């Protein structure tokens, strides 16, 4: 396996991960933009509208038929938050040419479709087609409204919204219903052109490809774009915890309560000892040997799930659990008590060993999937910390129980969110 990176144009990077063991490779283009209330909805709409039609494949039917014809090379788009940025991605998993039963150059056909969708959208009067834009707006509004359907994820998203009120990170990567409503074909097309000019663009090819040919292909495709690229501002860390914990109760017609607690950690990937925070999170609440699982679930039988996760960009940690309404206090107390245990130094050698092994295991899996490989190197280049999995393993091995206890001292509860039943049903 070998990694190589080059700049094709100002702020457009081509990353090659050469690994021959896969039967299907991965090609992806990620556009990184600042996250802001003015542009979140527009950005979220760009790729869905691009996927409605290109010059060669002018409607969704012709795009989908081409995808199937080239051995199920599906164009997948996604939008997500990464610190204070919004990342838009178009990716495809391309079957290796050696499996073509008809001698097709699958990669060439896939690149043709990918490039056409990305850079040659169907337009009318110089902008996106109005019917495509209106249709995708409606779908995005439906998606935003549907966030309420999955209570577990809804509670987690609401916690972040409350915790980061007034901070760009508190925004949804999909925008709001109102901001989607106000998007017009002209302003969306302008945003698309802005994205091509200003975004940091990270292109990845992972697998068994002719990488020079791919890099040249992308370079030529982007040659016509006039770039005006300025590095994206760094993500701002979460401010240290507020004086009094922010408490939010929300009521819905449900049978199980969802408790979500947000903590300030002050620890992010830019810290030289960030891996200590990762270890702390594993010991505290990630996985089935963590303190939260063993105590809140196994010992007290309060829940089916109770786990923590930490965010590498903003410096916070969350704990999420599904519980009986009446057990709210009991569960919250135990969650805080287990954190207190770490702070008091109650971290055993076995816990440290198991956490190390869990993280080493996760790192060991990086080589085993095209997606993992891309994410590993993407994090490296974005964080400005390009290290190999082996180097990361050495860092993990160096963490001691004392380091973890010390790290825990900074952690403070910041926001407390409970999704519970409507007043009348709350026993």
């Amino acid at each position, binding site marked *: 396996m070998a990694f190589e990176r080059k700049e094709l144009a100002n702020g457009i990077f081509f990353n090659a991960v050469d690994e021959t*063991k*896969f*039967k*299907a490779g991965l090609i992806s283009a990620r556009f990184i933009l600042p996250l802001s209330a003015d542009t979140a909805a527009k950005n979220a709409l760009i790729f869905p509208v691009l996927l409605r039609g290109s010059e060669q494949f002018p*409607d*969704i*039917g012709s795009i*989908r*038929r081409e*995808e*199937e014809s080239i*051995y*199920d*090379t*599906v164009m997948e788009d996604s939008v997500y938050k990464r610190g204070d940025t919004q990342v838009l991605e178009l990716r495809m*998993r391309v*079957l290796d040419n050696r*499996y073509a*039963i008809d001698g097709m150059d699958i990669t060439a056909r896939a690149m043709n479709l990918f490039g056409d969708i990305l850079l040659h959208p169907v337009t009318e009067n110089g902008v996106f087609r109005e019917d495509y834009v209106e*249709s995708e707006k*409606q*779908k995005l509004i*439906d*998606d935003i*409204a*549907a966030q*309420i*359907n*999955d*209570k577990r994820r809804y509670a987690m998203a609401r916690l972040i919204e409350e915790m980061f009120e007034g901070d760009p990170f508190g925004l949804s990567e999909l925008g709001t219903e109102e901001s989607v409503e106000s998007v017009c074909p002209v302003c969306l097309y302008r945003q698309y052109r802005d994205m091509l000019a200003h975004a940091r663009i990270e292109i990845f090819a992972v697998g068994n490809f002719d990488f020079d040919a791919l890099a040249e292909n992308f370079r030529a495709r982007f040659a016509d774009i006039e770039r005006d690229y300025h590095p994206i501002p760094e993500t701002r860390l979460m401010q240290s915890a507020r004086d009094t914990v922010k408490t939010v109760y929300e009521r*819905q*017609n*449900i*049978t*199980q309560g969802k408790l979500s607690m947000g903590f300030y950690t002050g620890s992010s990937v830019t810290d030289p000892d960030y891996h200590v925070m990762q270890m702390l999170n594993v010991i505290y609440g990630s*996985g*089935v*040997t963590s303190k939260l699982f063993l105590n809140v679930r*196994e010992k007290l*039988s*309060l*829940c*089916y*799930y109770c786990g923590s996760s930490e965010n590498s960009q903003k410096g916070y940690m969350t704990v999420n659990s*599904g*519980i*009986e309404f009446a057990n709210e206090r009991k569960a919250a107390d135990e969650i805080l008590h287990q954190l207190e245990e770490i702070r008091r130094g109650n971290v055993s050698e*076995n816990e440290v*060993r*198991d956490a190390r*092994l*869990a993280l*080493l*295991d996760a790192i*060991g*899996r990086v*080589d*085993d*999937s*095209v997606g993992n490989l891309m994410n590993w190197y993407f994090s490296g280049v974005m964080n400005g910390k390009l290290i190999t999995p082996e180097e990361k393993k050495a860092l993990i091995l160096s963490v001691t129980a004392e380091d973890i206890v010390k790290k825990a001292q900074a952690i403070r509860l910041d926001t407390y969110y409970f999704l519970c039943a409507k007043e009348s049903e709350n026993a």
Partner: protein
Amino acid sequence: MTRPEIIKKTTDIGETYYYAKHKSGLDIYVIPKDFATGYAVFATKYGAIDNCFEIEGEGKLHEVPDGIAHYLEHKIFENEDGVDTFSRFAAYGASANAFTTPTMTAYLFSCTNHLTENLEILLDYVSKPYFTPENVEKERGIIGQEIRMYEDNPASALYYNLLGAMYEKHQTRVNVAGTVESIAEITPELLYDCYYTFYNYANMTLCISGRVDMETVLDIVDRTLPEREQKKIIRHYHDEPAPVYKKRVSAEFEIAKPMFLIGVKDMDISDDPTVRMKKAVAMELLTDMLFGDTSPFAIDVYEKDLVNGFEASCDHAHDSSKIFLEGECDDPEEIYSLVLAYIEENKKRGLSREDFERVKRASYASYIKIFDSTRLADRYTFMLHDDCDPFTYGEALKAVTFEEVEALFPKLFREEFYAMSVVRPIGEA
């Protein structure tokens, strides 16, 4: 020690695997792959539908509470010495898990180191049950919360409501986790009864993928699995008529837009696994041709903004056979009528050979992509439990003809086989 015969096979795309039947009755499959992650699944052909059974020669009928297979799955993690199973795996850096389906209970782990040690732990804990009134009681709260979690999940209600509408008697309608009421009846004795019935090795499979060979696996199986009597299980499934039980079922949740799930019920299931595999392949292609991403129906409802997130899927196995169409829309009845009209129109016009070839090529590509991960052990266990050889899937796919798919179409799609489940926002008529 006598060694069973090891059978080596190579698939149409050059992937090799090994099979052996251990003297205990256990079927073992090893799929060597040069990936860092090793993946093992130890599973029993025992799931939510097996709530009524007898053991050959005993002449006694057992009827057990719904949700017991899943409860048993939770309790298998308990050990007599009090050491937590997860922590045993954690000491070797493995991630362990388990799941229960209508037809099987599976225990699995994946790891990047110590594959053989982890395999030994897997076989050991699953083969040593330890149930006490205390540890069984303790689990009731945890599983109760798991059930509550699904009760708040509209997608789960949509699914189980549909099964209840499609099937009048057959156990396919049973909720895997049971209900808070049904699990209240579960005792250590019942768990032991079910355990010694279904966890006899002749009813189990072991499937491993990674940097491992059959010889090593056989050594571990030999020294780890305790001797156990092989039993022949007679399973009683309730007779089920071909038409659906109810045409409609609906529920209300705090959601944004109505969700629909249309089911097409198929009771024509062969006892011959080869016939089933053939039909499963034809059914997948037919479902894709009619309702897949490139179908006129899927494109039409997308372009007209009639359905958000439209998806079609199907499964055909020894226990049940069905096709699902789902999505979110303003008016589920309108979509149901559109589906009906579209099917009839296609029956008149006939299927397209070009669509068939294109969809088949896409399926072939998806099949190859499965081999890019040792997790295939997981997916393949499902097929093994249907007595199908998953490694012949590629050949079955290549062999299926347009005429076979065409012939299947009018048999599957008949109005008496359709039912629809709807979940509406609270207060919406």
